[in-house]
């Protein structure tokens, strides 16, 4: 078994499709149709990953997300037909680890689940060095290298890259980056993050038209390739 996945979706067909598809990839799957059930199941069954649909009957998906957080350490991937970027940002800021817009293929979903599980494992192991391709970020020694060559970053640039690295593979919203790097008073100026990211890319020798390390998430924020 490569992990426990709790599906929270009110469509029975979706539940069955996910249960079948994920079981082929050796996941143990349980499915519930409401937020209330999700919270009790998360506490008792202890899943590793929760797939949460935002359009739930009764308790709203966002409310469920907020109530899930203290109840479980499971990674939450929001699955929703809402294509609006504002909803993605809202879900990420409310504690979701990733989002996937419906409809999606099973392969894509499995890749996302594996990514959040890997990240979780890294965090639990307290791995001091985070890698993204040939980029290495050594959290303990505060150094960044590409192919073993040291990259000189300003403290702000390093903080931003470090935060992305600690959440490698996860989209980080502009608001979160601002709060983490500049503190509570800087919220609102997305321009800062864009400027710093452009500077980091330049130092990493990354092509902004085809970035290898820091990926744009349009309308949401940035993600460090995991």
């Amino acid at each position, binding site marked *: 078994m490569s992990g426990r996945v709790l599906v929270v979706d009110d469509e029975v067909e979706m539940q069955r499709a996910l249960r079948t*598809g994920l079981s082929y990839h050796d996941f143990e799957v349980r499915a519930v149709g409401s937020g209330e059930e999700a919270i009790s199941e998360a506490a008792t069954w202890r899943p590793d990953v929760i797939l949460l649909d935002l359009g739930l009957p009764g308790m709203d998906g966002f409310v469920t997300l907020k109530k899930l957080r203290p109840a479980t350490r499971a990674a939450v991937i929001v699955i929703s037909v809402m294509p609006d970027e504002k909803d993605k940002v809202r879900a990420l800021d409310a504690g979701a680890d990733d989002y996937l817009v419906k409809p*999606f293929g099973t392969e894509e979903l499995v890749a996302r689940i594996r990514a959040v599980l890997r990240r979780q494992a890294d965090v639990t192991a307290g791995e001091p060095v985070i890698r993204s391709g040939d980029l290495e970020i050594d959290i303990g020694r505060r150094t960044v290298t590409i192919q073993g060559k040291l990259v000189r970053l300003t403290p702000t640039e390093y903080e931003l890259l470090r935060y992305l690295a600690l959440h490698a593979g996860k989209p980080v919203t502009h608001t979160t980056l601002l709060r983490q790097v500049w503190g509570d008073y800087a919220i609102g100026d997305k321009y800062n993050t864009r400027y710093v990211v452009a500077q980091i890319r330049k130092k990493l020798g990354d092509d902004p038209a085809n970035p290898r390390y820091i990926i744009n998430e349009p309308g949401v924020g940035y993600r460090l390739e995991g």
Partner: protein
Amino acid sequence: MRPRLAPYAVAIGGVIAITAVIWLISSKTSVPGLSAIYLLLILWLGARWGRGPALVGSVGAFLSYDFFFVPPVNTFTVRDSANVLELIVLLAVALVTSQLAASLRRSRATAEALARESRALYEVATAALRSAEVTAALSMLCRRATELTSVSRFALVAVDSGQPSALAGGDLSPAELKQAAWSHENGRAIGIAVRDGMVSVVRKHPSDSAPAYLPLASGVAVIGIDEDQVTPDELRMLAAVVGLADLLMDRRRAALESERARGLESSDRLKTAILSSLSHELKSPIASLRTGLTALAAPQAGLKDDQRELLVDLDRQASRLDRMVGDLLALSRLEAGLQLDREAHGFSDLVANATRHLRIELASNRLVVELPDDLPPVNVDEVQAGRVVANLLENAHEWAPPGGVIEVGASPRDGMLEAWVENDGPPIATGDLDRIFDTFWTRRVRGSGLGLAICKRVVEAHGGTIRAENRRRGPRFTFTLPLAHVAAPRAQAL
């Protein structure tokens, strides 16, 4: 008739009284120049009643003085030449005084009339403009207009989308309404004219009793006016009332229009809500379909290769359906007036997002992105503008031959960023170059006809333009986006 005679009686009486006073004084002692007392009377008469009584007073004074005081007394005969001169001076001074006093009275009367008129207008205007109910204010105006002696009737006709209807000031006959509609439609007044704040009556036949029609910006004033009784004052007042009515009718129309716009807006919101819920309803089953189909297509499901291929084909169809629903929703949102979340973005970022999104499709093309390093950032909604680039790239991919070249370029021009996407596929038929951006118009059998329509809407929502042309190598789509105004060092970094 009495009020007209009274001043003359007073004039004669006054002359007699003053004559008596002068006679009394001159019987006691000899005072020269007593005739000046008459001038006081004449001055007063002129100021009070105008020229007529003052003239009568002047002549009376002249005759009385001559008869009673100029020797030989008790005759009108004058012997002494000095006395002749005195009498002539008296008469001349009396006449001039009466003239002056009369003109003084006239100008005071005019000033008072003007003050009265402007007070009346002010009252009407404030009452009309303060009134929340425009119709009530218009009715009040009509009432005030008919208070004028020469105006027997004053009605206002609204003409909304060509249909005349009586709005205030009483009902009109169908023929009158028709006449009013004609007047409004052609902008021609009938039987009346307004020029330089004055109304003038234009009658072809004196016996004509039909009302006059005066077209206003958003209606018609129908006025029954008696030509024989009109005075300049009343015409001025009438012109002012017409002006106010014009203003109020305009306000009424503006209120109606904004109400209509609110209605449209709420129907747009409703449309968006329906489409959004509809797309949710359509997307949920597609989601189950795709998840189920791709689940079964996994090798672990243990199906044969031809069965798996069928499932992959079906999944591709489901994806197509999903894209079409997504495009429909995007288009309907754009048409309902989508709020743009505009910020400074590097155009290269938009291209990078789009090429990442389409990396599987574009793998079979040679993509050449040539953007100058110092390209200034654009002020756009990242997601929407990214959609434009993605749709144009997708379109280029569809039309470029296998392994064909897709070129992306941009340069600043006239305060905008001009960008283009070109492919080396077959040219677009000249007649299609304009239609290509129409909704549901497509060159492909399987196309939705929405991709380019969305591009056009997004670009135009940003204040830009988009066009298609055939270049030597192949079709090129050129569009413009507004530049962002940001500090220079940061701009270069983006």
